[in-house]
């Protein structure tokens, strides 16, 4: 019998290396690469190495092959001097408009099957998502979160809503939208068109509010009519007016009704619940953000930040596109409870083997698991 060897965090580096070795220039899809700041973190040392730039794609690729980083980020901003250490000296020239959809910010039913929390005050722990400890009320909560297919489907539906808004309202076309898996629990939607690069932060704030339906004021959108109220712009309008009208049609069978304020409020709330998109606004507002490099590996999942077309998302192809490592069943041993559901797999407490890519995800993201190879 062969000596049992164990996969460790540092040997995971070798796996990442085998991935980066086969990567080609065509897999690196960053426009104006030489104007971007890059940042890396590595398996064998802590911290983040920032303010790095590359003249061309080939040089970035060489670096990836040579160092097999744990995480790779690039700036959504374009700089005159991307490697300047001082942010003010970088010479900001503009930034892509980026939307981040992350199930961290969305309630899903599956969280009780895979997310864990531990109270730092009294050490109570449990499954699901809590804001404060149910035992002692402490708010210092440590979380370990996981992703499953249900999560991905929820995130995907948000992407569809966003895409519809970007097309119908913002007038962007599909080929201007670049969608990638974030590497863990969601998607990034990048817009690189020249018209958006120059948007200042106030302008981005306004677009965020639009996408999230924030600041909608019922009194501004309604006008008095025959003893009640009517939408200021009625059934044949567009934008949020059309969304609200659509919801009125769905709920009441009338697209341009006259209602009292209380009934309108219900329609507004219903429409916003259904149509507002759950984006993480911090990403969109930040014009100097670092974001994961498409087609790079996420160091806590071993999954690839793969680009997706809307079409591919509709077809529901997911795991096959983001999974890099093999499906081969391998032996594991556990030192505690595993999440019951991750990626496309249900895990029973008696499982003694798992597909390699699932086991690797569990190990990288800190589950109590040992992989014997």
């Amino acid at each position, binding site marked *: 019998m062969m000596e049992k060897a164990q996969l460790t965090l540092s040997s995971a580096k070798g796996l990442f290396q085998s991935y980066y070795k086969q990567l080609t220039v065509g897999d690196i899809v960053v426009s104006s690469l030489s104007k971007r700041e890059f940042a890396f973190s590595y398996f064998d040392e802590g911290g983040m190495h920032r303010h790095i730039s590359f003249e061309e794609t080939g040089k970035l690729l060489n670096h990836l092959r040579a160092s097999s980083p744990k995480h790779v980020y690039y700036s959504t901003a374009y700089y005159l001097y991307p490697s300047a250490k001082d942010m003010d000296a970088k010479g900001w020239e503009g930034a892509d408009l980026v939307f981040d959809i992350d199930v961290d910010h969305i309630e899903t039913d599956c969280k009780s099957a895979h997310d864990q929390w531990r109270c730092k005050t009294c050490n109570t722990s449990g499954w699901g998502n809590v804001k404060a400890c149910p035992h002692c009320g402490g708010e210092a909560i440590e979380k370990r979160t996981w992703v499953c297919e249900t999560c991905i489907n929820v995130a995907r539906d948000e992407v569809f809503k966003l895409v519809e808004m970007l097309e119908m309202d913002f007038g962007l076309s599909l080929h201007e939208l670049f969608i990638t898996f974030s590497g863990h629990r969601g998607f990034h939607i990048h817009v690189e068109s020249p*018209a958006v690069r*120059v948007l200042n932060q*106030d*302008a981005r704030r306004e677009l965020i509010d*639009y996408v999230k339906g924030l600041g*909608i004021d019922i009194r501004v959108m309604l006008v008095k009519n025959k003893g009640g109220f009517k939408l200021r712009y009625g059934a044949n*309008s567009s934008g949020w007016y059309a969304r609200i009208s659509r919801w009125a049609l769905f709920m009441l069978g009338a697209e341009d009704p006259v209602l009292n304020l209380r009934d309108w409020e219900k329609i507004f709330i219903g429409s916003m619940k259904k149509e507002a998109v759950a984006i993480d606004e911090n990403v969109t507002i930040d014009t100097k953000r670092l974001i994961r490099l498409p087609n790079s590996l996420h160091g806590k999942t071993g999954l690839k930040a793969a680009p997706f077309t809307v079409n591919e998302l509709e077809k529901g192809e997911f795991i096959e596109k983001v999974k890099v490592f093999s499906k081969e069943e391998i032996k594991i041993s556990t030192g505690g409870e595993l999440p019951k559901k991750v990626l496309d797999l249900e895990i029973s407490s008696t499982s003694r083997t798992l597909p390699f890519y699932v086991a690797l995800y569990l190990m990288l993201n800190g589950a109590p698991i040992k992989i014997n190879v």
Partner: protein
Amino acid sequence: MPLKAEVILSITDLSKYPFIPEALERVKTLGIELTDFTAKPLKGIVERAATYVRAAIDGVELPPPSEDIDEEVLSFALTLLLLKVIGDRMLTRRFAVAFSKRTGAFMAGEDNGKLVYILDKLNLKILKASETKYGYDHKVNIFDYVNNIPEGKGSWKLVHRLVEKGWVYVNKYEAARLGEEALKEHIENKIDEMKIEDVQFPDELYSLIEGLSSEWGRRLKSIREAWAMTVQGSSEEAFPPCIATIISNVKAGKNVPHSARFALASFLLSVGMNVEDVLSVFSSAPDFNEKIARYQVEHIAGRRGSGKKYLPYKCENMRTLGLCVADCKVKHPLMYYWMTLRRRSKKEEK
């Protein structure tokens, strides 16, 4: 896209809009050198430019443009140059604001074709709508709209607009207002981009620049002193405790609620500060957003919207808003201020 032939900007138009390329081209063909400005016939231009800079220093409205198109365009160009050499961001902004305001009033009065043409020169993509929608006859590119939005609330807020396929429907006045915002930035960028390293200034222009610089320095100093006075102990006497409290909160970088900002701005405007001075006061707050603050303060001063000038809240209102911090036995914070001043001047007479 507006067709050039469709719009004929007359000579008088050019003097209203000296920033558009046609106007600037015209000046170039005159072939005037900086040294020519010191000669008699061009003195008027220098004087006008100096007037513009002084208006910015004092925070007052600009005079109407010269009827002589060449004089106006040259004065405009020279004003930008003077501001570049003085090199103070705040002063530049004050000029950009004053100039845009003057221009905004002209733009709102133009016919649709001219307006579209001028906005196009400011890189604001605007189209005449193929059909009028709910009284809106123009549409502005959505990204230009949000980049130039005067305030992110009420009817301006994007969620409340008729938005369709990348366009936001607007009426003529809204279009002119967006143009005003775009023009502010246009002017600031123009000044930013100017290169003056190789420019040789004749002595007379130099002494003008020095004069204006020190005028601005004095103005800035008095703004800062007024502010410092209101913040330091001396204000405890003349300013009512409620206002003094808001001021120290602003200074301490605390998050001051809208109602408190309103109370402070309306109070300072009532005791003789102008809009620019009040803005300088607010600018020491860490979350200061010049665009929003300006809009609010101008609104309170009655320069925007209804044109109504707002008086500060009565003590009664201050109390309900939770801004009252003492029981001064007056009905109005302003009453406290005037009474204190009267008392003080009587003391001095004695």
